[in-house]
């Protein structure tokens, strides 16, 4: 549901920001796990966008 609204560009921007925060050590240690999880989800989302078919688009194209 969330993925429907999320665009690749927005996910990328968020990832860049997370990476900067992590590198600068701007993150409270309590938040590291949550942020890491978020980052991994975003990475997977972006990779899927690049390498997998969008089912809805596929359907439209096949019609």
């Amino acid at each position, binding site marked *: 549901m969330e993925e429907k609204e999320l665009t*690749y*560009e927005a996910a*990328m921007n968020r*990832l*860049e920001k*997370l*990476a900067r*925060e*992590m*590198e*600068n*050590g701007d*993150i409270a*240690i309590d938040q*590291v796990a949550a942020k*890491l999880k978020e*980052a991994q989800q975003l*990475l997977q989302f*972006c*990779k899927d*966008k*690049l*390498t*997998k*078919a*969008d089912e809805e*688009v*596929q359907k*439209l*194209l096949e019609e």
Partner: protein
Amino acid sequence: MTLFELNHIVRSVLENSLDEKYWVEGEFADASVGFGGHFYGEMIQKDEAGRNIVARARITCWARNYNIISLRFQKETGETLRRSLHVKLLVKVTFHEQYGYALNILDVDSSFTLGDMAKRRKEILNRLQQDGIINDNKELPLPQLLKHIAVVSSAGAAGYGDFCNQLEHNEYGLFFHHHLFPAVMQGTNVEDSIMTALAAIADEADCWDCVVIIRGGGATGDLSDFDSYPLAAAVAQMPIPVIVGIGHERDETVLDFVAHTRVKTPTAAAAFLIDNGAQQLARLDDIQNSIMQGVSLLCERQQRRIEQLTVQLTSAPRQRLLTEKHQIQMLQSRFMQSVRFMFQNAKLKLENLQARYIALDPALQLKRGYSLTYTADGRLLRSSSDMHPGDQIITRLADGTFKSKVEGVSDT
């Protein structure tokens, strides 16, 4: 006089009064290769406005000569001798009793046609510039994700097949949704059919990340069909980036100037899309690495902090304890010292007193030769005035006493 005789006179007059050959400029209104490989066509000249034809002549070129000059022309211009092409020809004026007036092509000036095409392109580009749209498509940001590709090409073209094949079998496992909007890529309908395809794509522009216009690689057909103002304007004003791979190594069309990205061939267009995806994958890897490094750095830093705190927490009390112990030792030694001093002092005093007492001891005086004298009733005599002749006295020495009688008293 017969018609043949009249025509023969005309032919003689023409042949005698004209030069061997002339350079003449014009436009092909018709051009085709007929039986036996001979070239037949019609050359025209239009008025300044380009509306009305002001001159017209039949043209021919014999197969042997045509093969040589058409090959060279194609090599030099990328064009074939075709309809509506502007050319400068070296011709011999001929008149045949049966076929009439015609110009026989001896040679063709490639640089004139190149110049003419360039001039036409330049005019189109100037107009695009004046209209302020020449950079519209170029200035569109290229989406980071190029996945939904609207393709304008002809379905049967080898270039289109290559393009699809390359996209679908890329080494990175990238997935592309591509859809063909068929168009004629060669001949007089190029302009209309590409524009129709572009309009269809523009209608659903939010479904597509970019447009790719490709034409079969290696095709040697005329490129000037692409040099059209309406087509260039349509490309420039597409709401999404247009990638052009018209498939011509040497020459360029106005589309190359207005498109967001120009590549040489359909396979290069596919490679561009794949590279873009590969770059995105690499960027994702970089981000992943940065994040992992960041996390481990963060953890290391926390670890160090904990170690430092541990040291601080354990070392401070120990230090404190040591200080306290030291202070106690100091106090103890100071205490001991003062006690020792007190005793020494007391001892010294005692010794002093003892010495004084010893000095006072009468026995000691007696030993040294002093003696004590008492009256007979035992009083110690301290003055001669207490004595009188005849008094009985007792003298005590260190080792005993003796009695004697006073005979006389004097005060010296």
